[in-house]
């Protein structure tokens, strides 16, 4: 074996967003824990970018049951009920954990936790730290992590999981310089976040490449609902390189108008009651329709306008937006912002039990890499809560995993090494493959889907998968593996989109008419497990 760099621990956590760090500080109480991330710890992923907040039921007017119902309805009843129960009932204690560890969330005058209303929820239940809640969450967790005994590995990419006799027992890693390593463990937790980066236009960080879906899939874990990709209605359109950057929902919350190129407030056609304050999926579809039907701006967006609001109001309530746009030469006090939908969140992912156990032994998962919690559409503020609730549960479950004797599957390691070596003889650059994939996904597997487009995409992705990637130095190894991971994720999204012959949640099939509602749909989860995929049919509803 060429791999000399080996480490061993009780629990290996992959990913250091909200879910990964939460899992690591919990697992540590059971035994030696290592946390690896392909970025600098805490800086990677999407947690640090979250702005809006964290949902938790904290006051009398609200109830766990209401949180449960809101989440189910928001998720088009595709959610796994047990997971939603767990989310709603444990989120309050997870926010309290954060407070006892030093969180600097906003408080009210009576020193209780401040909460604001968020789309699709009947109570003000979203806790926040200004407009940088995710950053605050990560800082709090880092303050906890740095004081723990968890071993922190920065800028180490996991290339594949290792298993022995059906039990996951470690991972193959690759550092910044391209040096391979092996970390063995009794249990492994995947907390690698989502995969917005498979799309051309996304809010996600550059680490949002869906590695965990691919790692889990290759290790035999079942994934569900991969077609459910949330498009946030308001992403930036210009300048070109900033396209997709999230424009917070608060802009609409504060009274912003959406207008098409003709100056019409088009939401009157799509949701006259809630107008701009309608849910994300409705607004995203409305914008997409306006653009498709030729009423979009020159750059393929619509206008989001706050210039009718008092200037001071904009300055006080939307300072970050004001500044960001000023940086790009747009004064939102006088002129509208150009916006269009952008790929935001993967609701689907690795199937877990409420204990965060995947379908493979000794492999656990938490956060955006999992599926089932958010069903077909995630409510704002539920993802951060998800990272904490299931991060902790994964930490405990993994920590309690029995200690096993280490046996490395040398065949698996050799196979990996051979595969990596073959990259030096490939033909195509990662950057080019990714660009082609992103464009295909954006054009054919976006908000509106139909069989024809999906089939085209399926062929295109297959073609890219058959192109051999080329690298020139070991430092490009991880990038090549990540590109393959992205292609695999793209493939699963397309498969799911073809399998789900209905419009549900974030998934809209324009070529299918359906006679059922979300609640009476005969379909359950789409599922994917090593070479096999399908969709659950609920016999009793047929």
């Amino acid at each position, binding site marked *: 074996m060429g791999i000399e760099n080996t480490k061993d621990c009780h629990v290996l956590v992959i990913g250091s967003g909200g879910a990964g760090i939460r899992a690591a500080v919990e697992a540590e109480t059971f035994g030696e824990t290592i946390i690896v991330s392909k970025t600098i710890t805490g800086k990677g992923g999407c947690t640090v*970018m979250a702005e809006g907040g964290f949902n938790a039921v904290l006051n009398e007017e609200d109830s766990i049951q209401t949180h449960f119902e809101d989440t189910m309805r928001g998720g088009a009843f595709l959610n796994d009920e047990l997971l939603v129960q767990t989310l709603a009932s444990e989120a309050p204690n997870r926010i309290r954990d954060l407070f006892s560890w030093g969180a600097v969330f906003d408080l009210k005058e009576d020193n209780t936790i401040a909460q604001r209303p968020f789309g699709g929820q009947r109570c003000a239940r979203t806790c926040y730290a200004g407009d940088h809640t995710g950053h605050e969450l990560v800082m709090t967790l880092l303050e906890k992590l740095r004081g723990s005994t968890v071993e922190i590995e920065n800028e180490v990419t996991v290339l594949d999981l290792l298993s022995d006799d059906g039990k996951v027992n470690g991972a193959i890693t690759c550092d910044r310089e391209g040096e391979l390593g092996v970390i063995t463990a009794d249990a492994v937790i995947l907390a690698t976040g989502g995969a917005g980066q498979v799309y051309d236009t996304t809010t996600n960080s550059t680490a949002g490449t869906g590695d965990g879906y691919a790692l889990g899939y290759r290790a035999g874990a079942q994934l569900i609902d991969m077609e459910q990709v949330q498009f946030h209605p308001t992403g930036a359109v210009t300048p*070109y390189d900033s396209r997709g950057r999230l424009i917070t929902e608060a802009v609409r919350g504060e009274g912003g108008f959406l207008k098409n190129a003709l100056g019409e407030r088009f939401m009157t056609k799509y949701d006259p009651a809630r107008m701009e304050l309608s849910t994300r999926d409705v607004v995203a579809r409305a914008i997409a329709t306006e653009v498709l039907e030729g009423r979009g701006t020159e750059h393929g967006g619509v206008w989001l306008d706050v210039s009718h609001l008092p200037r001071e109001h904009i300055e006080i309530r939307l300072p970050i937006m004001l500044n960001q746009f000023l940086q790009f*030469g747009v004064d939102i006090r006088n002129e509208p912002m150009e916006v269009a939908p952008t790929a935001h969140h993967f609701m689907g992912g690795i199937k877990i039990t409420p204990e965060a156990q995947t379908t493979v032994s000794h492999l656990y998962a938490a956060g955006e890499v999992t599926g089932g919690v958010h069903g077909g559409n995630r409510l704002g503020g539920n993802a951060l809560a998800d990272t904490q609730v299931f991060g902790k549960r994964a930490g405990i479950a993994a920590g309690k995993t029995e200690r096993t004797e280490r046996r490395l599957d040398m065949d698996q390691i050799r196979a990996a090494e051979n595969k990596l070596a073959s990259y030096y003889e490939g033909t195509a650059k990662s950057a080019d493959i990714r660009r082609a994939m992103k464009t295909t996904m954006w054009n054919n597997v976006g908000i509106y889907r139909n069989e024809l487009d999906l089939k085209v995409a399926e062929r295109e992705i297959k073609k890219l998968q058959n192109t051999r990637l080329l690298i020139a130095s070991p430092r490009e190894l991880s990038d090549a593996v990540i590109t393959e991971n992205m292609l695999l994720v793209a493939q699963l999204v397309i498969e799911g989109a073809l399998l789900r012959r209905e419009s549900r949640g974030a998934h809209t099939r324009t070529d299918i008419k359906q006679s059922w509602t979300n609640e009476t749909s005969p379909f359950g989860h789409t599922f994917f497990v090593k070479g096999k995929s399908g969709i659950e049919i609920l016999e009793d509803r047929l």
Partner: protein
Amino acid sequence: MKVTISRFDPDTGEPPKFVEYDVSVKKAARVLNVLDAVRDTIDPGFAYRHCCRGGQCGSCAVRVNGEPVLACMQEAREGDVIEPLELPRIRDLVTDIAPVMAQIAWMNSGCDCTQVTQQEIEEIKPLRECIECYSCISSCPAISVSDYKGPTIMRQEQRLNLDPRDKGDRILEAIDKGLFSCTTCHKCVEVCPKEIETPRKAIEKLRAEAAKRGLSLPAHKALAALIEKTGRSVERKEPTFLERVADVIEPEGEVRATVGFFVGCMFNGRVIQPALDAMEVLRKNGIRVIVPKDQICCGSPLIRTGLSGFLPELQKRNIDAFVKAGVDTVLTICAGCGSTLKNDYDTPFRVVDITEYLCELGFKIPEKVEGTYTYHDPCHLLRGQGISEQPRILLDSVAEKFVEMPARCCGAGGGVKSGLPEQAAAIGAIRAEMVKETGADYIVTVCPFCEFHLHQVTGLPVKNIATLMLEGYRKQEK
């Protein structure tokens, strides 16, 4: 777009080298997009950090044309020179930040308590937005010459110190990490993408708590005692400025304006001539000067070192003195006093620096004085008061030859010269090298502390800008 990028490959054993790249990018591209273009179209092995693309994660800080910026936020410009932060280098633009991260203090929540008040939260917030980009670490002048751990490290100490949930002794820890090494140059604020005011909101506050516990440096304690006893931070060795001048100094010719004059301790007692020169310059420009004799030390040394018990008394006496004199504008010629009066006082009158005021009012153009001059930006003028153009306008008008020099702290401020003289000398030595590179015969500045210190470390004559102007006027009159 053409840019120059500093490349470094540790495997070759060769020193870093600058490489020019020509890449095509879209309109309004950020520096990060240029780096992406180099990686994607020219060299896939090019190493740099990035993640959120939106100024939220702090991964991407680099230096562009010498100044730290977030690559994902900074608009790229033709000809940009892109280098890594000034930290130990790993490869290309990737630096070793692990040792810095290891210094960031963590929460020691000894209890299960969740009790924290809204007011406490609001106080912590301004110190909380740090994205750990380490731009401040890269540009802090005190770090490279001492064991000082740096601005964001101090920010974190104070953030924890303010938090009732934390059980650590953050004062002792901060002292251990070099609390007294900061010169309060405010460079860290200038480069911080989140505009965190570490010197004012963390360092001075930590020093104040250290002072309450008697942990200040001996030299600082002595200085504070002197101020409390005499109202001055400088001992009287000869007749002071205030003892030498009249209460009202009438200008030559028509009175164009009237100002009150705040002299400050150094110009009052140690380097007196430049202050007298300044009076002459004001006279020649038609400015009547009122000099209240009951003014005292502005309190800057107390605030910077944290020994601020006597401060309210000083503030009151100074404000009263000028209110009694009936002036609406108070002029300073000391960058430190000016910055203190502007930022740490709530004055019922306007405070102006002499360079700012002369440019605003219009000044008599002096004759050129021979010699090559360079200008040292005093930190408390440049960053404390945002003044950089005006001294240059004056200098351009009087210096035969003026050569620019990038701004950098000389090391004298923040109580470092009195408290840790060796460190001040070491920072000064770096500055001296920069002065040498300009080839100037004279250094001009507008701060008596810089003046005094720069002369010591460079051996070159250091002139106050007023002195130079006066030379020009005298020459003209001849």
